[in-house]
């Protein structure tokens, strides 16, 4: 993707909602996100008080605990012009989960909705706000074959459509190969992968089979949960495939263009 120079763009500021999973288990995804946003003229701030959006607690049935986390997430992020997260899952929580948490509290519901309208998953922000350049012609010698696993929460809960694909297509050096049954869950499911570990492993094994069948050198997604899960299964199977977050791929291709 070509990176426009700073002066072409209005000055934009965003707060990074890095997500607890990226913060603790995949900081490289957060770093890539910051770097690629800065290259596109976006000033990134990191509100240090942020912890977790409350999804883990909410999905485990801990409604009160989830509400506390949701309220503080709203308080921390509402002062900013826009919020970007390298996660469709946590953004899905902000957009959809908070609707449930605050369904009987008009005041908080209004605040949650106000925050949601200015909160974006990374690929959404790149496509809808910054605008991705038209797909580059496929390089005659692609540097890598890539396949894309759509995260369930990004697509079904948040409503991300083909934004990640648009972003990937704009990186002309890659060859995108289709993944069969791409829409199938990878079996992560948060605590599901611990509570029903073997079942989760069986589900991700199917996903890995489909990935292997593409022959792609790299599999890309928008959520650290899926990626950690898929990577752990690929490594177990000895499948030599890179498992990367969309942010990491964009950051890498940016760097390669210089």
């Amino acid at each position, binding site marked *: 993707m070509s990176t426009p120079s700073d002066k072409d763009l209005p000055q934009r500021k965003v707060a990074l909602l890095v997500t607890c999973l990226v913060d603790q288990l995949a900081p490289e995804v957060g770093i890539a996100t910051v770097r690629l946003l800065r290259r596109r003229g976006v000033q990134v701030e*990191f509100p240090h008080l942020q*912890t977790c959006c409350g999804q883990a*607690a909410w999905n485990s049935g801990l409604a009160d605990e989830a509400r506390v986390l949701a309220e503080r997430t709203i308080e921390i992020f509402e002062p900013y012009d826009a919020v970007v997260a390298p996660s469709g899952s946590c953004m899905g929580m902000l957009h959809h989960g908070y609707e449930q948490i605050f369904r009987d509290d008009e005041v908080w519901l209004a605040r949650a909705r106000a925050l949601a309208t200015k909160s974006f998953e990374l690929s959404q922000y790149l496509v809808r706000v910054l605008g991705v350049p038209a797909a580059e012609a496929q390089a005659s010698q692609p540097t890598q074959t890539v396949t894309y696993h759509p995260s369930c929460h990004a697509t*079904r809960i948040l409503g991300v459509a083909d934004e990640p694909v648009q972003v990937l297509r704009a990186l002309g050096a890659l060859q995108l190969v289709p993944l069969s049954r791409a829409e199938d869950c990878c079996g992560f499911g948060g605590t599901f992968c611990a509570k029903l570990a073997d079942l989760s492993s069986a589900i991700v*094994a199917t996903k890995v089979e489909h990935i292997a069948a593409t022959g792609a050198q790299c599999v890309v997604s928008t959520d650290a949960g899926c990626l950690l899960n898929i990577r752990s299964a690929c490594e177990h199977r000895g499948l030599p495939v890179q498992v990367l977050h969309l942010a990491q791929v964009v950051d890498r291709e940016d760097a390669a263009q210089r």
Partner: protein
Amino acid sequence: MSAHSLKDDFLDRAQHALGQDFLRRAVRKTTDRLRDGRAQAVKEAGQFDAWRTALSDARRRAIGRLDAVLRVFVERASAHGVQVHFAADAAEACAIVVELARAKGARLAAKGKSMLSEEIELNQALEAACVEALETDLGEWIIQLAGERPSHIILPVVHKPRAEIRELFEQHGGVSLSDETKVLAGYARDRLRAEFLRAELGITGCNMAIAETGAVALFSNEGNGRMVSTLPKTHIALMGLERIVETRADFADLMRLLPRSATGQRITTYVNVLHGPKRSAELDGPEELHVVIVDAGRTQQLADRDYREALACIRCGACLNACPVYSTVGGHAYGTVYPGPIGAVIEPLYARDDERRAELANASTLCGACHEACPVRIPLHDMLVSLRQANARQGRGDRTELTLQRVAARAMAVPFVYAHGAAVARWFGRFVSSNGAWPRFVLHHTPVLHAMARQRVLPEPPARAFRDQWADLVRDERRGADGR
């Protein structure tokens, strides 16, 4: 009942299913086939989403004023000679059917496929009253011969290898058969045909009632439904309290979506819309048509805003086929009459004191594929979360696990505690990922990690969290050293 009774819990049953190669291949193959069929039908239809909206609205409209809609149905159905009965629960429903069987002196009841009949355990009640209940849907008959439970709402026998079916038939008839579908189906046809003529009672479910016309509709592919509802002198249709639409136009919406969502068919081989018993000038049809409307927990569900929408379900099974859990372990792992996401939602509602059904809320990755596939857009994934909340409130499930999650969630609300707690957890994670005798020992004795590590290489947590590296990123920016 089935080899997989309710005795053990979902984890055990799923574990058992994971070891069954045939079962897993068969379930996957079938769910893939049904999903592909549905996807093809969606593509062909072109306006599938508009149809979904129409049917979703129609179903919610009927559910929203169920009282009035049922009253219209009863009035209109009675007008063409249908005898309508109400049953508050399973026991009452069975008693009504048994009483009718006694009154008719029936010795054999031929049955069409009905999940409601499974739900209320009607066969057992009939047998107890010395009335033979014979399933005439091929899959259901096989299940009955095997003494099992259906493992799919519309394909009850998806889990069974052909050779086992042949053995069942051979034992049943004292004959020798081959594994060919034609041969097996032919055997079933021969045996069942005679029974249709002998049965005094025909019992079916009801895919949908139509209030406007007082009719009861049956969708089927095998034709047995039509025989059961026309040959015996008395036909009893079992109807869930919620299985009703207001108008013929609403029913047309259902006709578009039920077969397409279930199997990808544009229409099932047979659609029977029954407007009462045989009239004097007619040659065939039953002399009496009884509709037994069964509540069994549905009114309670109607009053509960968290789960009310699930009453819109048309029992197509699309959520089963779309579910990564169902398509990996099949229906028996759920240990319930209704398996899959819809089962995980409605089963605990119909048996609120049953802890084993309550835990089914955890049998989901919350991927939302069920909601996406649902022709009436039931937010099943949200309902599963609501059920998890109810479980947590009532202290159901693993208490230690719940306490740990609660502590973690509370720690998350305090940044200092979160950062330091997570640092300790990362250190521990790095320790067990390092390859030494002690780390391996610890990993082996931490059940959760050990289970996860069986078929995965656990990620090694980083030394520094993102927040610990933020200062570096700020410095990089000042220096312009981040590659800009």
